């Protein structure tokens, strides 16, 4: 069914404010300490509080403040800050009144300005530090030449809310573009015996094992994946930084895993700019926000870009609208193969001669953290306990140690 224009407009406005704050939070609280405090710094200092020591209390407060203002948007429509119910079949919960719009528009303006500030901080802390740029581009973090996936609009610009799914090959050429409802023709899932997550790959390339390149169906989504899969950003501030990123990192596509952080703040800026754009449109006050459904659907596939990556929900329902079958492929699942390859590459690159210390472990963790993964979302198993077995091999592939828990 079709949404009324302002039902869709409001949903897009809300979703973009979410994309802004979620990316902002990850950058300042999880990624930035690695760069601002230092990748091998004492773990006790390598966190938000250590970051505040370097960039100042006001910046830390501003992040929390901006996050709260963006979440206020969700609270207005969903009644609460966490797990708000906003979208309803055919539209959403409530219209926006002029007074609240005026207040929230100021917050969106602040969000755009804070995005510019964040770019400047990234320039000062990371880009002006040759050691960090070299780290971003190093083989340790940069060897995963994969396919990339993301939603795009009619002009192949990065889209979060709705659009065609576009996949590009490791050289950046369009491999396929399809409607989300056709995902089963393009995405396959496989089960590995050693993990609770499924591993996805491109059906029409095939699974060739834990390798990258054009003959491997492994692909990546999330911020860097989306930028690579697109031809640009929809908004000017984000587009300028998009161009700067590819120019700085050697052209498109960029495979460097740590560039996920740069891509993340670029997307955050687009979120802020689109949030503002919708708030500046007086049609957003239109009170026709929902068309009441008149039919019972039998199947529905939703494809959206969550902050962490491509998200697919697929439902079959009976004549009463009760779900009979469902399939969810969440962001971290799409990235799972890439995460494994990135972590393995980082581990091989920084751990030499069996020497491991906190700093090296963090440098391995940085490869994981770049994806902002949510393993809980991606793990569809609840066995009651987690049998875990870790086998540690030396360079000659000789088993040196086995660690077991609950098995």
């Amino acid at each position: 069914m079709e949404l009324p224009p302002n039902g869709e407009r409001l949903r897009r406005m809300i979703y973009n404010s979410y994309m802004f704050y979620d990316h902002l939070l990850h950058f300042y609280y999880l990624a930035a300490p690695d760069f601002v405090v230092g990748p091998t710094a004492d773990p006790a200092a390598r966190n938000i509080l250590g970051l505040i020591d370097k960039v100042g209390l006001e910046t830390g407060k501003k992040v929390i403040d901006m996050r709260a203002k963006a979440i206020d948007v969700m609270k207005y429509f969903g009644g609460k800050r966490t797990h708000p119910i906003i979208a309803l079949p055919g539209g959403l919960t409530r219209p926006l009144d002029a007074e609240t719009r005026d207040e929230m528009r100021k917050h969106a303006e602040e969000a755009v300005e804070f995005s510019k500030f964040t770019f400047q901080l990234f320039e000062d802390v990371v880009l002006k530090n040759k050691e960090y740029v070299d780290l971003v581009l190093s083989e340790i973090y940069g060897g995963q030449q994969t396919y990339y996936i993301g939603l795009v609009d009619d002009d192949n610009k990065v889209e979060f809310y709705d659009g065609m799914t576009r996949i590009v090959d490791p050289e950046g050429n369009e491999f396929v573009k399809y409607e989300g409802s056709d995902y089963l023709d393009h995405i396959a899932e496989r089960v590995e015996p050693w993990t609770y997550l499924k591993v996805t790959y491109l059906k029409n390339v095939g699974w060739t094992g834990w390798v990258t390149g054009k003959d491997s169906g492994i692909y990546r989504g999330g911020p860097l994946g989306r930028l690579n899969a697109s031809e640009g950003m929809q908004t000017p501030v984000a587009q300028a930084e998009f161009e700067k990123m590819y120019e700085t990192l050697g052209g498109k596509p960029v495979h460097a895993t740590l560039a996920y952080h740069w891509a993340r703040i670029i997307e955050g800026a687009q979120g802020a700019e689109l949030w503002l754009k919708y708030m500046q449109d007086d049609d957003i006050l239109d009170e026709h926000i929902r068309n009441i459904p008149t039919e019972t659907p039998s199947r529905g596939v939703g494809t959206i870009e969550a902050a962490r990556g491509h998200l697919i929900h697929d439902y079959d329902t009976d004549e009463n609208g009760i779900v009979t079958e469902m399939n969810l492929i969440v962001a971290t699942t799409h990235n799972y193969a890439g995460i494994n390859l990135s972590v393995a590459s980082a581990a091989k690159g920084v751990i030499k001669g069996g020497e491991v210390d906190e700093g090296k472990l963090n440098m391995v963790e940085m490869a994981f953290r770049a994806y902002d993964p949510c393993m809980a979302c991606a793990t569809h198993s609840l066995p009651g306990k987690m049998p875990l077995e870790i086998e540690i091999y030396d360079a000659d592939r000789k088993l040196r140690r086995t660690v077991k828990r609950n098995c």
Partner: protein
Amino acid sequence: MLQFQSMSAELEARRGKTLVLGIGNVIRGDDGVGIHVARRVAELLPAELAATVDVDEACTGGFDLVDYLRGYERAVVADAIKTEGGEPGTVYKFSADALKPTAHLGHSHGVNLASALAVLSGLELGAPREVTVVAVEAEWLYEFKEELSPRVAAAVEEAAAAVLEALKNPPA
């Protein structure tokens, strides 16, 4: 029409007050015991405390806890706990100072209660001056059930009483 209160208005309203926060997921068996305890506290809350105590539920963890706790003078958190060899239904009461922040933060969902409090105090954003945890040893943590296990269900009353005791007699 649904009343909307922005975060800045909420913070103003929280000034000098105490939060009772139940944390958990009520469709995951005993994981939801903190919510059940908070609901019982709301039922038993004496009239003289009603103006200074807010009772809320957080079916979440992670960074969202920052927003829940920010600006309150004090907080009492009710949650499920799993300790080595603990007897299901046992009620514990301790200061949140005993909790350790998340060791390795990989994602924003990994922020635990201690990390959230550290952020609030580190940023001078209004961390509660004192946070008490009332925890119930859980048995069914990994099953999709809307009810509590018998021993944990039987402990809700004791845990609610422990929360009320903490409200009436806060640590110095």
